[in-house]
């Protein structure tokens, strides 16, 4: 019974995270300027990382944790590189 509640909760949470990514995608496409798009890309990285973590709870396998960690690290590095590019016009000076 409680296992069913948990599975439904995870299903609803994954739907919410996908809806969050859809909102971010809408702003990513429509966003008036480049910094809005970079902000949305960063938020999408976080939502995707949380989606992978909930997938790990759903399947009960610990391998998803490493994928989530890699997504978090790559999201940070790419967002910083894009912000640096917006500021200076080049990434490595």
């Amino acid at each position, binding site marked *: 019974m409680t296992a069913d509640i*948990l599975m439904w*909760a995870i299903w609803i949470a994954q739907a*919410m995270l996908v809806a969050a990514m859809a909102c971010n995608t809408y702003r990513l496409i429509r966003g008036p*300027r480049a910094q809005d798009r970079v902000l949305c890309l960063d938020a999408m990285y*976080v939502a995707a990382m949380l989606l992978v973590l909930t997938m790990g709870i759903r399947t009960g396998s610990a391998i998803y*944790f490493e994928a989530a960690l890699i997504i*978090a690290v790559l999201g940070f590095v790419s967002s910083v590189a894009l912000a640096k590019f917006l500021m200076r016009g080049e990434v490595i000076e």
Partner: protein
Amino acid sequence: MSHAADLPAWAALLTAALVLVGAGLTLLGAIGILQFNSFFERVHAPTLGTSWGTGAIVLASMVFFSVLGARPVLHELLIGAFITATTPVTLMLLARAALYRDRAEGNENVPPRSTLRQTPRADVQDAAGD
């Protein structure tokens, strides 16, 4: 589906509640990105997802795997600490880049470059004169 069946009821309910809270906060942040009007308002919105959105789901994962494996599983703390440490860095860099771009284009709705140092300070000039 089968692995969650031997979980005690309190752990299953706690995990479900934490997962729902985390995903709901992330969705709220995304709706905020959609709704706010200027970039400097929008830059606040995703911090909902990166503070307690991530925190709740990481906590749910820790509770779930700890109770399931009957041993403390704490490696999800790594993700929480990493997101907590890197989000301010990213967003401050991005906000500074946006401010720089707005100033370079001459937008009037951002503060000018240095409002504090427009009048030269008398004590600095005296020290330079000596």
